[in-house]
């Protein structure tokens, strides 16, 4: 599960609701498991009538962290499976757009449409699991397309590159969490992608979520019809889940590049909850504690100081209860990188010098409820909400289920989680100067 937070806003992105309960404004969104699912890892229906549409999310529980020796393999597989799915099911190319994305720990295929299209959407989702079948030459040339997309994304966000460097230094890994995305482009190949598909696109490594305007019984019937024949096979190994850096690790890399528009300090930390082996029961602790810490970071770095002009953070709690935190900070002109780094590190280390108070936690609970309800207002945000925890192979959390989890989490759980986060831990820092 992950939280991405930008706490220096140009404009405040949240459209949310500040009420104590969900019941008054948006109907609760129950998450119902579907049992006739063949060999799928899990299948769910989340019915809601607010929007006149239905969405099918097929989540392959493997992503770029699962890349084998060649970075980009998971991404190439996503392209091939998506086009193959469309070619197998659609009669006219103009009928719909592809929507597939490769994330760190999952690959998500989303098929959306009016309620009457539900069978088409399920067929498109089912076809993703078949070995990609594309015209001769097309699959091979998709590698070239992937080159272009990768370069395009690198230019759009050079921070992706800095994050990779930080993760490589943190884990010492040569694939998955590594900095070889560009170097490996020329070695990408179809064999690796088909092998990835065979290993990772097995039903046992796939979660299906049907949401929107559909009756649960209808969803159950159709999922059984289209996925009931899938076989239960062994789920793939995930060696990256075993990577645990030495807690005393402290690595600083300095670089200069004209790819950057600003100077950047990037800090990544790894926190090992060594007494836990799953995060399934840590969701409330995670979301509330990270909200407290994010607020305190914003207070220190934005509201009480003007040394940094932009900061964002990304928090990822793996299914085995390892926390990865990345903070990106841009110093104002005239502030050197070491001064900014010192500011960032000192702020981090002293975040809990003032104990967390019940009033502060009450405010955070309310804010989290508001954000959850906000997610329920827009279809795209709602889908992302469902997808978040489900990408770890856990049951999806709808905004109303999230509200229950938040109220069931005690203050002590949150405080303990936050204290653990701030303890000294493995740290990787990149100080990147914009070349002038």
């Amino acid at each position: 599960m992950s939280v991405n937070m930008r706490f220096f806003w140009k404009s405040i992105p949240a459209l949310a609701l500040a009420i104590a309960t969900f019941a008054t404004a948006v109907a609760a969104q129950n998450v119902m498991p579907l049992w006739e699912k063949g060999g799928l890892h899990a299948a769910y229906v989340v019915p809601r009538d607010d929007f006149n549409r239905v969405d099918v999310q097929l989540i392959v529980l493997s992503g770029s962290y699962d890349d084998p020796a060649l970075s980009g393999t998971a991404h190439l597989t996503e392209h091939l499976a998506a086009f193959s799915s469309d070619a197998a099911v659609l009669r006219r190319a103009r009928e719909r757009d592809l929507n597939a994305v490769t994330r760190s720990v999952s690959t998500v295929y989303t098929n959306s449409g009016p309620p009457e299209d539900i069978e088409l959407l399920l067929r498109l989702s089912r076809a993703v699991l078949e070995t990609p079948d594309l015209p001769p030459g097309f699959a091979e040339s998709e590698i070239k397309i992937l080159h272009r997309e990768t370069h395009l994304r690198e230019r759009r966000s050079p921070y992706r590159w800095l994050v990779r460097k930080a993760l490589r230094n943190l884990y010492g890994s040569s694939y998955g969490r590594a900095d070889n995305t560009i170097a490996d482009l020329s070695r990408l190949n179809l064999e690796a992608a088909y092998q990835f598909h065979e290993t990772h696109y097995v039903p046992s490594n796939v979660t299906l979520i049907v949401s929107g305007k559909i009756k649960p019984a209808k969803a159950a019937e159709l999922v059984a019809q289209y996925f009931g024949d899938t076989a239960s096979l062994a789920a793939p190994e995930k060696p990256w889940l075993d990577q645990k850096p030495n807690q005393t690790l402290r690595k600083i890399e300095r670089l200069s590049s004209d790819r950057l528009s600003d100077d950047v300090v990037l800090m990544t930390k790894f926190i090992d909850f060594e007494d836990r082996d799953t995060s399934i029961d840590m969701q409330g602790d995670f979301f509330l504690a990270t909200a407290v810490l994010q607020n305190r970071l914003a207070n220190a770095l934005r509201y009480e100081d003007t040394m940094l002009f932009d900061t964002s953070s990304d928090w990822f709690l793996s299914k085995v209860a390892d926390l990865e935190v990345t903070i990106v900070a841009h110093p104002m002109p005239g502030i050197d990188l070491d001064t900014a780094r010192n500011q960032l590190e000192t702020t981090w280390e002293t975040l809990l010098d003032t104990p967390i108070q019940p009033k502060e936690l009450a405010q955070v609970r309310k804010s989290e409820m508001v954000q959850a309800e906000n997610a329920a207002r827009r279809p795209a945000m709602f889908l992302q909400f469902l997808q978040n925890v489900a990408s770890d192979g856990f049951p999806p959390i709808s905004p109303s289920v999230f509200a229950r989890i938040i109220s069931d989490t005690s203050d002590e759980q949150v405080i303990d989680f936050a204290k653990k986060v701030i303890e000294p831990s493995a740290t990787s820092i990149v100080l990147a100067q914009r070349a002038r």
Partner: protein
Amino acid sequence: MRYIMALALLTFLAAPTVGKTQSEHETLIATNQETRSASLVAMRNGLTSVTFVWPMGDQTPQNVDAIQAGMFSVLTGGTESRTPSQIATFMRQKGVSKRVSTLEDNLLLTVSAPDDVFPEVLVHLENLLLKATYSDDWYARELRKLRRPIASTTRQSSDVLSRVERFLNYANTDEEAQSIDPRFRFGKPSQVVLRSNDAEVTVRTRRLLAKLPPDASRSRLGDWLQRLVNRNSTAFTLPRGIIHFADPTSSETLLFLVSAQEFQSEAQQLGANLLLDYIGSNQGSEMFRIIRQELRASYDPESRFVVLGDKRALLVLSATVEAAEWPEIHGRMRGIYRDVRHGKVDQKGLEIQYAQLKQSYEDKLFFDAVWTAEQYLRAHPEGATGDIEIPIFNAFGQVNFDEIIDNANDYLPPFEDFLLVVVGGGVAPPADLTRHELCSLEKFEPIDHCLKSLPSGVSTP
């Protein structure tokens, strides 16, 4: 599709105005006229919104950035009674969204929040607008965040488009205009657009407007004349020719073609929009089908129809391609465009584009307060009375596909009218293009330099 908005609330016009003396070192952004107000159909996501519109007058792009940074500072930098942190907490707890944007020579602030808390949010907004106390450092940081990327470095079509929009918006302004003091105050707006069914919201909005100071130094007649002159004389043309940034170290080139068009009617605008969508707006388009799927030449071939004013839009075609191949792909883009312009269009495909565009307009109308306010303001720049209609919505109900295909030659400009921006790679424009004016960019040089130096084109209706 036909949507009649709720009755314009002319009662606002009668609201009394409380004047306030402008501080010595403070820039007051306000009108001296009565605020024109309109109430549009409520949104369908349980949110209420209000959009304030302030006239900025003729400003340089730098000053517009300064005014925007001032607005961001007012919204976040603290008040006499609340710290920045307390303001942020209030925002999170109430679920408030604030969006700042510009539309022609106006600054827009759109505030949205759940229906049940909106009256309280208006009190919060009043506090911000009347009692902001941000520091100079805070303002400097807001201004720094508004710095734009250099398009020739990022090679993103969105960054090039942003520069072109900026050029068009401020083509008539004086670059050497006097700088503005960073202490801003936002007073009486020229227009207010409200989306609420709650009478309490209307009452509180009226109260807030009554407390906002007018800019007594502005002449009412002068403001009116300036708007009239601006509206009638603002050129909507881009230069013709080629802007080229050669980067031999890069293996990729961005091809970006753009044309500024004014349309004679909403029907013509909608027809051009559909035809351009047919050419490249999504994965069923001709550009995707041919350039990506057949030629395997680009990841991101696309077209964009960017509405910038009443019956005014930018038509954009773009693709990032292998550097050595750009002249060939440019030729294929030309071929696709000309085919469609000559009526070689599959009507079924055009109907799918129509359904997608119509759905997009409907979704935005009921879920996107900023977009809808902008649609209204473009259609009714001087405000509206009685039932409010936005003509482009009505055009959807009268679409005739045969007519669009038959008139494609008139709806779309000739390919030669497009400005071509080529960024990256070392291949110079080939002979068949060199009859056009060419402007070469240096590394880290914004494309504005070339937009200003190339000869002006002529808008083709």
